[in-house]
């Protein structure tokens, strides 16, 4: 077996694409056995080694495509994936509702738009926004676990950043930049990590990847300017706030619906 042969290269490439799976060693061994078997069969027919490797690989399919197809099926031992898909769908739905509540509460609690401002309203809105941040964090952790099958360092960081956003929202919800920025970092980091096997729609993923950083930057600019100059940028703040809410509600509702469809499909296969 050529140590640096084409099959070895293919297997290395395939292995990085299934790196998030707990059963990656088994997946790589299974593919390796296939490729070497195919190659040996061609060699037995008189084909030289290099041509045999090329043909075996061409027949097998491109590593990115094959890895994507294989990882689309959760492994038998990886019950976490299906378990999480079910719980995660419900949690994503709750999170979408919490963001709707947060948007309404934010308008009531942080502005004069809906009658006079009161401290109670502000505190109530802070609690709702903080809950939405924490619920979002829980979904993000679930999405990471589902994609990678383990609680790795990046997932722990995302959890910590998400919890920080929740605490910031509870303490100082009116300084939007303070909680929007970490929340955005947690969401965007997660989406970038799990892009390949994210259950949500690719369109919403792109929308979130573009809109959330923009909203976060606008929130930080608005917060800093508000703190430094005493001029409160109402229009900018509310556009940012409601824009962020709309994107999050759409993203989580989409995730909830798609996960529900997926677990429905799994039940149909198993049934």
């Amino acid at each position, binding site marked *: 077996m050529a140590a640096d042969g084409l099959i070895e290269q293919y297997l290395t490439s395939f292995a990085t694409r299934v790196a998030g799976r707990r059963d990656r060693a088994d997946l790589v061994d299974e593919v390796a056995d296939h490729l070497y078997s195919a190659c040996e069969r061609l060699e037995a027919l008189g084909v030289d080694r290099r041509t045999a490797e090329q043909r075996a690989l061409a027949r097998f399919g491109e590593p990115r495509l094959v890895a994507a*197809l294989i990882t689309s099926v959760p492994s038998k031992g990886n019950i976490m994936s299906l378990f999480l898909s079910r719980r995660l769908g419900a949690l994503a739905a709750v999170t979408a509702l919490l963001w709707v509540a947060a948007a309404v509460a934010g308008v009531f609690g942080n502005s004069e738009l809906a009658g006079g401002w009161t401290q109670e309203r502000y505190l109530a809105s802070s609690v709702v926004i903080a809950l939405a941040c924490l619920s979002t964090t829980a979904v993000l952790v679930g999405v990471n676990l589902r994609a990678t099958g383990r609680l790795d360092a990046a997932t722990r960081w995302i959890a910590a950043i998400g919890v920080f956003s929740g605490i910031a929202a509870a303490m100082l919800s009116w300084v939007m930049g303070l909680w929007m920025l970490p929340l955005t970092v947690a969401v965007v980091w997660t989406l970038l990590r799990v892009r390949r096997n994210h259950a949500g729609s690719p369109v919403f993923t792109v929308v979130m990847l573009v809109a959330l950083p923009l909203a976060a930057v606008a929130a930080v600019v608005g917060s800093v300017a508000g703190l430094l100059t005493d001029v409160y940028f109402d229009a900018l703040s509310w556009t940012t706030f409601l824009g962020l809410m709309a994107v999050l509600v759409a993203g989580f509702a989409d995730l909830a619906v798609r996960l529900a469809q997926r677990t429905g499909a799994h039940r149909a296969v198993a049934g």
Partner: protein
Amino acid sequence: MNSEALKGHLDLLVLAIVSGGPVHGYGVIEQLRDRSDGSFDLAEGTVYPVLHRLERAGLLMHEWSDASGRRRKLYRLTEAGTARLSAQRADWREFVSAVETILRRSPWPQTA
């Protein structure tokens, strides 16, 4: 043979091949190709998602063997898989015979 046409029946074909005894993924592909005289010839990597999905659904199970000098994953049917295969086989035969009847284009009602 159009690979799209094959896709819808792949589960049944894979179950039928695995029912012949413990077999690895490459063996499934080989038999699919050989037993169909080369008609069923698909990108070989695509058989694994099918095998894994059938295993998840409880229709297949696997064991590892080192007999070939490499780790080899061998699949076999579970009881549920055997039951599913015979049910799907019966469905398929019924379907084929119904289609055949129509394709024969015999005048109907036929008077012998």
